[in-house]
């Protein structure tokens, strides 16, 4: 890895460790290997959002040309959000693409992702199914996102109705996550989800 990238990540790492956001447990950063090319980030779901109480793990890959090119970031924790793929965890955020600037840091990236969880942009979606639900049925979107936070990110809100529906599909032989995706995509309409899974 080019010297400048590794050196900068080292400095940034120190900066994040000392930052007040870490003290408040809002963000976390860990090294995955010794060469500073891969890191593990963690952000807390912001208050007053369906992600509240959850912890979301991120995979961060630092290119050799960093900081002249943005880091590659994706969600490892499964999440229901219009700008994040529910399948791959890929993120649609301008500063990770064309709006990157060399003075941005891993700390500002993590804080921007946290802001993205508070303010989705459904008109620039990464996941079309989620974005459609967000625009057409916000309440349904919020309970679905809260349910995913409960299951995958350790969030506090257990949704008995959703869990029962998933169990019914699992009893029919459907894999649990697949059942959750189908039900989430069809606004928790058991009949339509079943139809889609078995057609």
């Amino acid at each position, binding site marked *: 890895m080019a010297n400048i990238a590794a050196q*900068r990540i080292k*400095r940034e790492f120190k900066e994040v460790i000392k930052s007040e956001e870490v003290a408040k447990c809002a963000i976390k950063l860990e090294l995955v290997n010794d060469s500073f090319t891969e890191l593990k980030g963690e952000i807390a779901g912001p208050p007053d959002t369906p992600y509240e109480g959850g912890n979301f793990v991120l995979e961060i890959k630092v290119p050799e040309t960093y900081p*002249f090119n943005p880091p590659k970031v994706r969600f490892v924790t499964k999440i229901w959000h219009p700008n994040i793929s529910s399948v791959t965890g890929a993120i649609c955020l301008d500063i990770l693409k*064309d709006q990157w*600037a*060399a*003075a941005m840091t891993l700390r500002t990236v993590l804080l921007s992702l946290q802001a993205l969880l508070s303010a989705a942009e459904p008109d620039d979606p990464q996941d079309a199914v989620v974005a459609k639900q967000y625009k057409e049925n916000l309440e349904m979107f919020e309970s679905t996102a809260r349910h995913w936070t409960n299951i995958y990110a350790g969030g506090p809100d257990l949704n008995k109705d959703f869990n029962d529906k998933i169990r019914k599909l699992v009893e029919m032989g459907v894999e649990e996550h697949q059942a959750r995706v189908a039900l989430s995509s069809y606004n928790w309409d058991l009949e339509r989800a079943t139809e889609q899974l078995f057609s």
Partner: protein
Amino acid sequence: MADYFQEMGWSPLAEGEAPNHLLHLVRLFIDYNMFEELGETQRLPPPASIEAVNNLPEVSINEEGKQCPVCLKDYEKGSSAVKMPCDHLFHPECIKRWLTKTNSCPLCRHELPTDDENYEAYRKEKIRAKQRVNDIENLHNCMFS
């Protein structure tokens, strides 16, 4: 009465001058939001013009404890830094490498001129369009408020 060209912020063609078709095309693209559809705004703006970069002034750093926002290293006392028009300072090698990629300040996105004719036409027309909206609003306020 204000002259038509003056009102529109345009200038009439000089004798024997042909219309700038590139400019017309750019105008058409902007009016129909085609740049957005072509993904033009999704792309990083082009590099800063070589001349603009070479003309950036260098200043010497006298205080300690200041760091370059690109590499995050402290400046050595007495070393030189490049000063952007927005007054932001960087190591010469750091900012020059960034400006070969795109034309704006890494801290505040202040734009330097580029050598890319299409981009310059696009930028100029965007500023003009904004100016026109302001002018119309002013006119409206003068008449109805």
